[in-house]
């Protein structure tokens, strides 16, 4: 059953498509799980709890035919612009959702917001995002097609990020989501895809994945399927 929150997400994507932005963003974070339901059709896959956070990754450099004012696109949907913290990261909030734009952080990185002038917003640079962008699928989502990272990359990244979380609740949520997706990938015979995604990671990240898997029930057993 589609609830109020989901309806708003679908309206959001329809508006982004209408503005010509949808093809330039990748849905990341827990809302991907809803799209993965189609990918894992026929396999028990229940996404479970989703928070209000919805993150859209903008692979850079962004090439738009003409500038688009995101605030103008989101305003009519009831989103309110919030500038968070000292750095002034832009976030669009609504009673049902908190939308943030993310860009891949490259090189030495910077804590400053990344200026996405073509969209009239700034975005938060985050590590590992290029890893997600390298294997993207188009999946049905609320009557549209949206770009999402391949589930194997999504799950592995969740494992890495879980080890860096300050809040236990976030860490546990990451591990739950990673476990759910890995279980579905194994059930659908996709150990090879997991193995390839794991092999594409730098050694340090692989170490982080190994450590995180220990915290998952059956994690070590699954790990044997793709880490060796």
């Amino acid at each position, binding site marked *: 059953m589609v609830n109020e929150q989901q309806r708003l997400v679908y309206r959001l994507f329809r508006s982004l498509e209408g503005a010509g932005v949808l093809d330039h963003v990748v849905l990341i974070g827990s809302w991907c799980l809803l799209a993965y339901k189609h990918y894992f059709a026929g396999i028990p896959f229940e996404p479970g709890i989703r*928070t209000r956070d919805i993150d859209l990754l903008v692979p850079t450099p962004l090439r738009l035919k003409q500038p688009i004012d995101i605030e103008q696109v989101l305003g009519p949907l009831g989103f309110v612009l919030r500038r968070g913290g000292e750095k002034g990261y832009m976030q669009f909030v609504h*009673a049902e959702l908190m939308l943030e734009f993310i860009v891949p952080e490259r090189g030495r990185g910077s804590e400053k917001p990344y200026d996405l002038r073509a969209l009239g917003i700034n975005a938060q640079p985050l590590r590992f995002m290029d890893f997600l962008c390298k294997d993207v699928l188009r999946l049905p989502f609320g009557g549209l097609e949206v770009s999402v990272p391949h589930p194997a990359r999504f799950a592995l990244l969740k494992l890495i990020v879980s080890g860096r979380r300050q809040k236990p*609740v976030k860490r546990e949520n990451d591990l739950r989501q990673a476990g759910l997706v890995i279980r579905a990938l194994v059930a659908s015979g996709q150990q090879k895809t997991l193995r390839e995604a794991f092999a594409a990671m730098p050694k340090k990240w692989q170490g982080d994945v190994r450590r995180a898997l220990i915290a998952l029930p059956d994690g070590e057993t699954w790990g044997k399927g793709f880490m060796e």
Partner: protein
Amino acid sequence: MFLKDMLKEELANSRRIKADVEDALRKLPPGALVRKKVGGRVYCYLAERKAGKVAFAYLGKLPAAEIRRYEEAKQRRADYRRQIRDLKGQIRYLEKATRGE
């Protein structure tokens, strides 16, 4: 424990979003546009509640863009009020679920 922590996080989010939406509501241009037809011509007034009474301020003939601006503000005001009502409900529920923490 996991669920309760998540609910606490959501409670904090609801409170912050409510403050943001209330702030946005305050920033909207006040009043509602009223169009009156006098002698076949349409004139605009700004209806505003002042000290419990509705007062009409004459605006005259307005360009279409200005009329659209007032209409958008009206729509947003209704939307923000609905969101604030929903957020109050969320906060009440989450406060109960987390025992008012």
